[in-house]
């Protein structure tokens, strides 16, 4: 089979997969479009299920609910902190598990599996008891602690997947060329690991910003965005929530577009 046909088939296949990828992305975003739409709903009552006409009222009154704004800020800052901490801790564990065979391998993997396998409510209530016994006040930082505990395993497993088939010879080569262990890590290992780390951190961020159960029990009186939204759905989601969601989403899309444009510039 000539490489020419292969290449042509590759292009067609590539196109098909590209369309497929975008279809999936759009499917993932489908509910978001609904959420965006209902941020314009001119609902007079408390519920936001039936369309009653278009209005920009909710956009004008976005920050009317101070609790909601605080909750959103909390969610974002907590997610940022949690991502950094669990990113570092999880990468360390994932890297170690993939790089070396050491005495603690089995117990570490068991712990990670158990952590992922444990139902959230179990983790949440168990941790709450711990905090109470240790007389630790529940609030912003206990949320951070709880979420890091929950996210480390996800980062570790993702980085670990990246480590499969990691070529140790590259490290040796670097050392032969005179690089110390830290330089080797910085210039050789880290770039190879980077997609895994980035993917793990993205997961951790998404998990953190969307976390509900563990946060609920260990938050004290601090509110995060999911906590506030969930509470509000008891008697109907106020359209401000849709607006917030819209802005978050649009913000994300803008970030994505700008990073694409920036990378084009670099060419």
């Amino acid at each position, binding site marked *: 089979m000539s490489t020419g046909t292969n290449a042509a088939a590759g292009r067609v296949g590539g196109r098909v*997969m590209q369309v497929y990828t975008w279809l999936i992305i759009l499917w993932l975003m489908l509910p978001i479009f609904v959420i965006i739409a209902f941020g314009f709903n001119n609902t007079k009552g408390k519920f936001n299920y039936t369309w009653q006409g278009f209005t920009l009222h909710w956009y004008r009154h976005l920050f009317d609910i101070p609790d909601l704004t605080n909750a959103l800020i909390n969610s974002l800052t907590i997610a940022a902190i949690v991502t950094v901490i669990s990113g570092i801790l999880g990468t*360390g564990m994932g890297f170690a598990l993939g790089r070396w065979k050491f005495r*603690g391998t089995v117990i570490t993997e068991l712990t990670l*599996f*158990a*952590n992922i396998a444990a*139902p959230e409510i179990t983790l949440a209530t168990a941790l709450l008891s711990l905090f109470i016994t240790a007389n630790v006040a529940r609030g912003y930082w206990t949320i951070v602690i709880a979420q890091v505990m929950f996210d480390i395993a996800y980062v570790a497993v993702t980085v670990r997947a990246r480590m499969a*088939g990691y070529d140790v010879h590259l490290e040796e080569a670097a050392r032969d060329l005179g690089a110390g262990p830290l330089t080797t890590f910085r210039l050789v290992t880290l770039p190879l690991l980077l997609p895994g780390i980035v993917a793990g951190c993205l997961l951790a961020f998404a998990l953190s910003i969307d976390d509900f159960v563990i946060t609920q029990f260990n938050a004290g009186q601090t509110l995060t965005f999911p906590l506030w939204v969930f509470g509000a759905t008891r008697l109907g989601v106020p359209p401000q929530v849709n607006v917030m*969601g819209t802005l978050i989403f649009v913000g994300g899309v803008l970030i994505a577009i700008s990073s694409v444009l920036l990378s084009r510039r670099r060419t």
Partner: protein
Amino acid sequence: MIRRLRSASGPYLAVLPGGLWLAIFFVLPLFVMVSLSVQTGNLITGFQQTFHFANYSNMLSQYHEQLLRSLWYGVIATVLCVLLAYPMAYWIAFFGGRNKSTYLFLVLLPFFVTFVLRTVAWQFLLGDQGLVLDWLKRAGIVSQDFHVLATATAVIAGLVYNYLPFMLLPIYVALERIDPSLLEAAGDLYATRRQTFLRIVFPLTIPGIFAGVLLTFVPVVSDYVNASILGGTGQTMIGNIIQTLYLTNSDYPNASALSIVLMGILMIGIFVYARALGTRDLLDAAAG
């Protein structure tokens, strides 16, 4: 000599911070939970340690239906996730170019808008007279009685929707490692695209699939949100049961016992699966 010492302590140093965090905030509470799982009593009169292992058998016999159902949904959802995620991960890894991270980011962006809003939006979309079904019914494609919500299909669809990124990212991470020139070389050696894929690409991504299955199957089985919002009368999952035991019944021993049963089953499943895959990387150390 110093270098050798350093590399001997390497793994331990790397694992220590994370391990310590997990030891304090996960393992310790876990032990307390195990102890709690064999106690008896109730919240008002207190719980006493009676080593009542019957809690485990009681929970298994009472809720085996929901357990099996959850495992079954987990299998279906995970398989669907693999099938849906793999082509996408492939395209992003090999054709994504400079914008790979952007694509990943777009995949995760819906998560930032809280699962409650997303699932309620699905409720709206999939309602009996909702956008999707209304059109299908008018066109006569489905009967007037047809409904998606309150069925197992809706729950599984919701599970796949919510957990797809957890399958996508690990697979992507493994695929991205593969050097494209490897594929070119295979082509030069007259391998068909199919052979290239089956013999080279796929085996190299098995660790990624394993990680993806781990991060998907396990949380799916203990999920309760999708069943509660999208399900009907026969879709209760084990996660819903555990919720009720903790919150409504305040039955902490049985809730803990059931959680441990669930964790045990999942971990056994993971090891069996790992063995079947023959992932050297994973079990070499265990064997050796």
